[in-house]
């Protein structure tokens, strides 16, 4: 299934779920306003042994706001959708060995094998539309799972290679030392290479502890990756957002 078809299917399903709210089923539809803290990071598909040490990992602490609707189906099953606004950021600093790296600015680039430290920072804002099926084992607890599409309205990805050296082109190429100060280190900025559309899987857990108030936990993982498929300057990274928050039932 290609990406466009998944996005189209997801959007149509979501539209259907939302559209149903205007129909007689409306009576049984539940609508929540949700707000939560969000940790938004990006994970490599695998952590290889070229990353020797995580000096520091700051997944960022942001917020998410949303309006979400639940449509009961037969028995304990339901459909769930909505619209969320999410902020994500990340700041990771690691020590690497034999690490393939490409430093790019404008039309100029410098690539090779890096030994030293790499700081990577990212920041994203996105609108997310989840479409989930759910099961409620009790009146108070619900489990949800499905897909989401996200549209990024702000995307940044930047960082620098520092306190180390690059072997330009290959391990036997010229050795270029990089210091720690701007101008001495190897800066990169790949924000322009990030995808605007993300899609992936989305799982959630709700606890309705009060007839209006509830708590929720949500985890999304983007399957199509942070960067466009023709981008190879850093290894594939997948955005992962986790959030914890509170919900208020308006209907």
């Amino acid at each position, binding site marked *: 299934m290609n990406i466009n078809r998944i996005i189209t299917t997801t959007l149509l399903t979501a539209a259907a779920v939302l559209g149903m709210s205007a129909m007689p089923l409306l009576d049984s539809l539940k609508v929540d306003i949700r707000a939560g803290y969000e*940790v938004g990071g990006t994970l490599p598909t695998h952590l290889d042994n070229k990353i020797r040490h995580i000096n520091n990992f700051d997944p960022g602490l942001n917020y998410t706001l949303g309006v979400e609707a639940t449509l009961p189906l037969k028995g304990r099953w339901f459909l769930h959708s909505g619209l969320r606004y999410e902020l994500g950021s990340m700041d990771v600093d690691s020590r690497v060995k*034999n690490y393939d790296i490409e430093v790019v600015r404008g039309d100029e680039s*410098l690539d090779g094998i890096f030994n030293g430290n790499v700081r990577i920072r990212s920041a994203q804002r996105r609108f997310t539309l989840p479409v989930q099926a759910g099961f409620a084992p009790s009146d108070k607890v619900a489990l949800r799972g499905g897909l989401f599409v996200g549209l990024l309205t702000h995307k940044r990805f930047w960082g620098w290679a520092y306190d180390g050296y690059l072997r330009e082109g290959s*391990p036997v190429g*010229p050795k270029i030392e990089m210091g720690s100060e701007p101008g001495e280190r190897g800066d990169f900025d790949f924000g322009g290479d990030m995808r605007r559309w993300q899609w992936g899987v989305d799982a959630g857990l709700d606890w309705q502890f009060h007839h209006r108030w509830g708590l929720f936990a949500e985890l999304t993982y983007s399957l199509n990756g942070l960067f466009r498929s023709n981008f190879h300057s850093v290894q594939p990274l997948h955005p992962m957002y986790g959030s914890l928050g509170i919900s208020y039932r308006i209907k």
Partner: protein
Amino acid sequence: MMTVTNTSCFGSEPDGCEADIETATLHVDNPGEFFFQLTDSLQAVFSTDSIITFAVRGDADVHELAPTFTLSPGATVTPASGSVHDFSQGPVTYTVTSQDGHWQRRYRVLVVPTLITVADTLFYNFEHYELDPVFNRYYIWYNTLPDGSLGNDWATANDGYRISMGSATAMDYPTTPLLNGYEGAGVCLTTRDTGPFGRMANKRLAAGNMYLGTFDMKIAMSDHLHATRFGIPFTSRPDSFTGYYTFEPGATVQDFYGNPIAGRTDSASIYAVFYRNHDAAGNEVVLYGDNVLSSDLLVAVADLGYVAPTQQWTQWNVKFEYREEVDEQLLANRGYSMAIVFSSSTSGGSFTGAIGSRLCIDKVRLICSHNE
């Protein structure tokens, strides 16, 4: 902000993939009779070098020598470090293999008995140039030595410019050949824009430069002022420094941040310095952009000073101003170095100058005298 500090690492450490000789040492029983300077027995090898040359006294016996090497971590070398070879038949080739076995580099090691030549005049005509053999991106120059062979005494920072402007063509580099110089080919030094990398790094321009010495690519980015290593051993007593130049300053002088400086005209540099190449503690010394005109080790300086803008080939002839006597014994033991330095923007080291400033030079002479 939540901050997690993790001390684990992922899998076992990967094997090294580098295959360098980092230093080369030649131990002999009688170093004072073998080397001109005791420090000549140890050489730090640039990552861009694949030829290692020990210049030794003309009467040194080079039939049975056992150079030793330090290598990239985990790398191995064949023939072995410390094995005995005959260097009288030319270079000995060593092959270094990386720890992971995937990469190799070949080095040629030469031990060259060197006769001290006391020349009356050293000629630098800039007729011998070619694209650099590694990248074929920029020009390098060879000079004609007194015995007629070619030496690579001239260095430029062109290789450093390549880091910031990999897309530049050879004639867009700061230092380029000039087909029609004063006589035959000359050389042109042009202050260039360093592009998007340069702007990001607050290194917005690169002055064209050319000097007697070496360029240490490794620190071009982290410590640019010390990448230009001014000076080569020099065994004659210099009297005067002559040559021909044209100089056209670029339109607008800009500061470190790229802001125009109104009312200022760019200036060029043309000078030669003669200095003792070991300090009081016996350590080998080269001079850098930040001390080439101020070091305590300077013995004589020939500085044109103000380089008047001119589109016509103009001769300069500057006498070396001596600050101390020349020690003949030290001179014969390669204890002095000479650095001729040309730059199209005097303040290029602090990234101040006018893009487009152009200094062309040709037919450079160092006129030397004998102390009877």
